[in-house]
């Protein structure tokens, strides 16, 4: 059963032509999705629709079978979906750990030992104690990206939305981040990545491409192929 479903959605800004229209995509648990498209195709707008930050001008976005327009979207954003924004959207006056804790508290979920969990999450994305207790303002772009990922994971949402999560990172870190997101998908989450990166596209289970004209998503199974190739390589080396 699909977790997130786009039913012929369209979106247009006031007085302008539709950014996209007729999208009918589905997103399931336990999968890593990629959304690609050229600049201006509406990738970030689509992400906003999926995040419940705005409404489509036509069609519906359904979460767990319910129309997003009819549910408590604060609750949806704070519990069901974790968004990794392209510009991170962290609170600069807080430390990395405090930003993560803030999301835990905002979720309203009963989470014990928030401090320990936030430090563990930051450690998982490669930020040790020292960086975790540093104000976000004093972290590099890549470090802030990791904080944003840790924050999105902190309250264990069902869906993870990532807008260009590797855009500010070097190749090694890029791979680390993709691995983390892949692991999230393997753990049962629905992970959706908006990206330009061919490397990322190669790593996902399915890809949807946004075009100027009404499009139908183009699915791929590259990740499985890549994984199979990796397994074969490892077997060969052994």
């Amino acid at each position, binding site marked *: 059963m699909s977790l997130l479903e786009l039913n012929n959605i369209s979106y247009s800004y006031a007085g302008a032509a539709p950014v996209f229209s007729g999208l009918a995509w589905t997103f399931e648990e336990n999968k890593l999705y990629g959304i690609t498209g050229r600049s201006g195709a509406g990738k970030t707008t689509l992400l906003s629709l999926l*995040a419940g930050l*705005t409404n489509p001008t036509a069609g519906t976005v359904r979460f767990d079978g319910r129309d997003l327009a009819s549910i408590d979207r*604060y609750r*949806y*954003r*704070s519990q069901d979906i974790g968004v990794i*924004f392209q510009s991170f959207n962290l609170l600069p006056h807080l430390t990395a750990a405090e930003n993560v804790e*803030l999301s835990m508290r905002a979720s309203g979920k009963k989470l014990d030992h928030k401090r320990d969990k936030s430090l563990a999450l930051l450690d998982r994305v490669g930020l040790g104690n020292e960086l975790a207790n540093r104000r976000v303002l004093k972290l590099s772009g890549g470090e802030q990206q990791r904080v944003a990922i840790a924050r999105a994971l902190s309250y264990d949402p069902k869906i993870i939305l990532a807008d260009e999560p590797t855009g500010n990172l070097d190749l090694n870190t890029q791979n680390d981040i993709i691995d983390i997101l892949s692991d999230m998908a393997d753990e049962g989450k629905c992970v959706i990545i908006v990206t330009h990166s061919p490397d990322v596209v190669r790593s996902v289970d399915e890809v949807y491409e946004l075009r100027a004209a009404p499009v139908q998503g183009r699915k791929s199974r590259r990740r499985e192929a890549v994984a199979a190739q990796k397994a074969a390589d490892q077997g060969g080396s052994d």
Partner: protein
Amino acid sequence: MLVIINAVKAITRSKGRNILIMLIVAVIAAASAVALSIRHAASEAETSGQSDLTITGAIGLDRQKLMESAQAGQSTDGATQDPAASMDSMRELMQQYPDLTLDQLQTYADSSYVADFLYSASLSLDTTGDVEAVSDQASSDTTDSAEDPSATESSDPSMPSGQDPQRGGFAGGGPTMFGGRSMGDLTVIGYGSEASMTSFVDGTNQISDGSMIDLTQADNACLVSDEFASFNSLAVGDTITLANPAADTETYTLTIAGIYQSDSSSTSGSDIPMFSTSQDSANQVIVSYPTVSSIETSSASVATDTTDSQGDTVSTALSASTSGDYVFASPADYNAFDAELTAKGLDSAYTLSSSDLENYEASLVPLQNLSSFAQTLLWIVLGVGAVVLVTIAIFSIRERKYEVGVLTAIGVAKPKVALQFVVEMFLVAVLGLLVGLGVGAAVSPPIASSLLSAQVAQQESQSQSVDQNFGRVNIQGGPPAAQGGGPSGGGFGQAVDYINQINATLDWSVISQLAAIGLGLAVLASAAGVVFVMRYDPLTILSNRS
């Protein structure tokens, strides 16, 4: 919990801005504390003054109104007003409205608003034989004085119960006529009750020899002043014979039952002119009201008619002047009684008046001025403070727009974000309020005292200026109220004891009002922020930021 934690973090993060807000709230609170404590203390002082106040009032002719009626009558009769004609009209009107009788006064006294009714009647009689009225100047022939046709007119010899006239000035011989009555050199006052003898009740007069007379009996027993007794070598048990000023063969013999000493005899040499020795408090002979009635009745029975210098027929009968004072427990009772008099049919030519109430109201003027000033100060401080706080709050929210966008984007509901701003403002306001309360509590009493002293001094200066304009110099001779708390000069010789001390300390009433003000300001300031927060769209904020 999220709201509280975020609010506390935000406060500690923006120390500079929050210290500024706290200081503004503290200044508003301190100024409000001063203003509120002054108003509260003024109100308390007024209430306290009212509870301690006993008001006496009397019904008398409304001369102002009669004069206006007389002048109005002239205006309708002719094109121009003739002063002499107006005075004739005035006299006619006054004859139409004689003084109310004791029975009439007692009828009105039967009211739930009247705490007591004090009455007295006075007669003007001449001394005879070796007895003479006390005088500062050389003794004159008092017997002849009654016959002196050139004697000047005097004020009404009747004295309000318990109010001693001022002494001094006039030499022996008394004037002869006033208002159709002959005037002697002694005033015989008959009191209806001990309560009406207010100069004895308040300790101005004290019986030093002999005993009190029986006020219910027409026994011709009397009390005389020690000055009068000493002047005439009189002792308790002696008798004095007094004559009708209009008929010197008509005499009355009184027995001295007691001699009293008075503390009010120090006004000798006052600037107030005296027209008759009968006005001197030393020349007051105190008897019972029935005694005065008895003398009046006896006089009427032997009266003859004579013709005065103007050709009018005048009776020689003694006519007592009756005075009735109503006692009220509060100004409210006084006002209610005034309204009741009209309802009971008292003619509009008569009016109820009270110098006590006028003095009391005058004594409150500096306090009321101060209270009014405090209220104005309060409104200005609150108005300016509210504008400043709201402005700071709006700028603060606009600065934190991004924070609002992030919080709402990660799922914090807008009302919660708004509540966070309210809590922040509230916490800072509480701190400011506490600081302001401390400062206000410390400075309120000295500021209130200083301002009140200035008001009293200003009021005294105005009164003295008016007195000087009328040629009255230091009539009361009292020290300035601001310095000693004593009586200070009021208009027309009335002593006004201004309230010159108030206790402007903060009590729970003021503190609760301040808390309400602080809370109100915090709500007002954060309300502006709430409006902005509720209008913000997280997607727009974050897009603009990107």
